[in-house]
């Protein structure tokens, strides 16, 4: 019998705010233990938490970036449990009325497209961080109360690769939208994996196994690569799986039981009496809509479609948004967007790095780059000279046509003049001429170089080749 995996992911992401969710302590990684704490995030009695408006805004924005909707009424609830890293003995979360519902994430997968539907993205708070010693554990509450977004996917993921690509796409969107820095090293993204297997064609889901607290995407992939065959192995031998929570061990590359259903938590959710519901009005939602940016994949596809760029160039402009913006300004003025992309990626970017210049400090307008490419395409200057013109443009900001004229750099396409240079080059290098006639094709390139040198870089490359070959074969 054939089996299939059904996977759903709960992804926790720390929001990019200055302060914590309910208090004015700094949301900051790496501070000395228990320096960013106050009576509110330490869960002292009698304190009053107040929601961080920026965290609510980022949550709503995430909903839209993930193609979901902002709900008209959201509230907070208490999830009750005892654990040393939870200062209040409950975690504030959104249980039945979250800030956003629905949506989907699209991504490239094995040469095609993948898509994962989103159930919801809701706002909650992070807990403290424990460090374990020989006989005790130590708790640092700096992280307690940091705004945490939980993004829940539908159970529609079918393979470790699909889970991996989904997570990467999700991360890219969140970084793009300014929602979170998603720094994995700093624990800003953590993942719970829900996985079950069932015979292909069966509707009912198998027993749900949860793998908790994964802190790397490759870890999720590895855990699934282990867990799917393990479950199929049990079921196909007639065994029975029961609902449980497992832990992934990076070192052994295996999962192991953490707790079974019998020990499952009973969280006794109830509305958080200290926090008022959130009811966004139309102007608020409109202001969030105005912050929706073009998603990375859409941008990549648009660059490939509108400018006929190869995927690698398009991806460069996805990673470097300002550079992509600059490219677009130049490409709009040009007939050869691909040439513009080459200049921007290979020449301009290198010069910017070398000279520590920012895009805003560039002395020539983007259209000047298009003009330079036009000069090459129309045969007015050689591509070799174009490099010099570019360097000059970069230093002075002068228009390419002006530089070409001032320095007399127009390409020589006068056959007579080039023939003269060719004759000189052949006369000066009889050995190379001999070699070429004897069948060494590379010798031609050397002679071409010599002609180019004699013309001070101005001779038309194509003509040099043609004339040289004609003369040598004569």
């Amino acid at each position, binding site marked *: 019998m054939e089996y299939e995996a059904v996977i759903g992911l709960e992804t926790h992401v720390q929001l990019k*705010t*200055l*302060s914590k969710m309910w*208090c*004015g*302590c*700094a949301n900051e990684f790496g501070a*000395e*233990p*228990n*320096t*960013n*704490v*106050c*009576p509110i995030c*330490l869960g002292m009695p009698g304190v009053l938490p*107040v*929601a*961080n*408006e*920026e*965290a*609510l805004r980022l949550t709503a924005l995430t909903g839209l970036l993930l193609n979901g909707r902002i709900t008209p009424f959201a*509230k907070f609830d208490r999830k*009750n449990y*005892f*654990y*040393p*890293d939870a200062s209040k003995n409950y975690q504030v979360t959104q249980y039945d009325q979250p800030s956003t519902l629905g949506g989907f994430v699209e991504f490239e997968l094995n040469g095609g497209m993948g898509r994962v539907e989103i159930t919801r993205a809701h706002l909650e708070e992070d807990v403290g961080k*424990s*460090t*374990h*010693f020989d*006989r*005790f*554990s*130590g*708790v*640092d*509450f700096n992280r307690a109360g940091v705004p945490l977004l939980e993004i829940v996917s539908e159970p529609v993921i079918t393979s470790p690769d699909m889970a991996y690509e989904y997570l990467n796409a999700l991360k890219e969107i969140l970084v793009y939208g300014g929602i979170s820095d998603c720094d994995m090293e700093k624990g800003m993204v953590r993942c719970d994996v829900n996985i079950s297997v069932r015979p292909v064609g069966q509707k009912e889901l198998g027993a749900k196994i949860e793998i908790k607290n994964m802190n790397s995407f490759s870890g999720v992939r590895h855990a699934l690569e282990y867990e799917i065959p393990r479950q199929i192995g049990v079921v196909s031998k007639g065994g029975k799986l029961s609902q449980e929570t497992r832990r992934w061990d990076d070192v052994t590359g295996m999962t192991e039981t*953490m*707790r079974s259903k019998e020990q499952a938590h*009973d969280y*006794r959710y109830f*509305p958080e*009496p200290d*926090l*008022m*519901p*959130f*009811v*966004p009005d139309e102007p608020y939602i409109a202001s969030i809509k105005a912050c929706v940016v073009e998603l990375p994949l859409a941008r990549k596809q648009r660059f490939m479609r509108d400018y006929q760029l190869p995927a690698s160039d398009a991806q460069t402009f996805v990673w470097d948004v300002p550079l992509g913006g600059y490219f677009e300004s130049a490409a709009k003025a040009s007939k050869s967007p691909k040439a513009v992309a080459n200049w921007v990626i290979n020449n301009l970017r290198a010069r910017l790095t070398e000279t520590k210049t920012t895009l805003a400090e560039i002395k020539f307008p983007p259209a000047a780059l298009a003009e330079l490419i036009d000069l090459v395409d129309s045969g007015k200057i050689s591509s070799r000279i174009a490099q010099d013109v570019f360097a000059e443009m970069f230093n002075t900001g002068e228009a390419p046509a002006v530089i070409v004229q001032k320095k007399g750099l127009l390409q020589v396409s006068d056959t007579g003049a080039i023939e003269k240079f060719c004759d000189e080059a052949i006369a000066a290098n009889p050995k190379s001429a001999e070699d070429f006639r004897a069948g060494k094709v590379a010798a031609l390139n050397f002679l071409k170089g010599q002609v180019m040198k004699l013309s001070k870089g101005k001779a038309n490359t194509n003509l040099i080749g043609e004339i040289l070959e004609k003369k040598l074969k004569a």
Partner: protein
Amino acid sequence: MAAVEIDVNYVAHLARLSLTPEETQRVSTQLGNILAFIDKLSEVDVSKVEPTAHAVPLVNVTRPDVVTGSLPTAEALRNAPTKANGLFVVPKIVE
């Protein structure tokens, strides 16, 4: 009104309380009385009242995202039974 049956041992476990059999008996009666008392609410006709999670008619109570400062670490740890290196020291967490 019939008292609501509750599993006192289960609730005690959730609250991490350990009760003697006598206490279990006493708490059971008390909780039963409390629930019976609360149950009086079901006598009120609420068919025309919207359900709500809050009795206060307030929404959108927020604060700007501004860092306003924290407690000195010594002050934050003052009530901790045990502390070391700026950390709250707790029994070893194993799960």
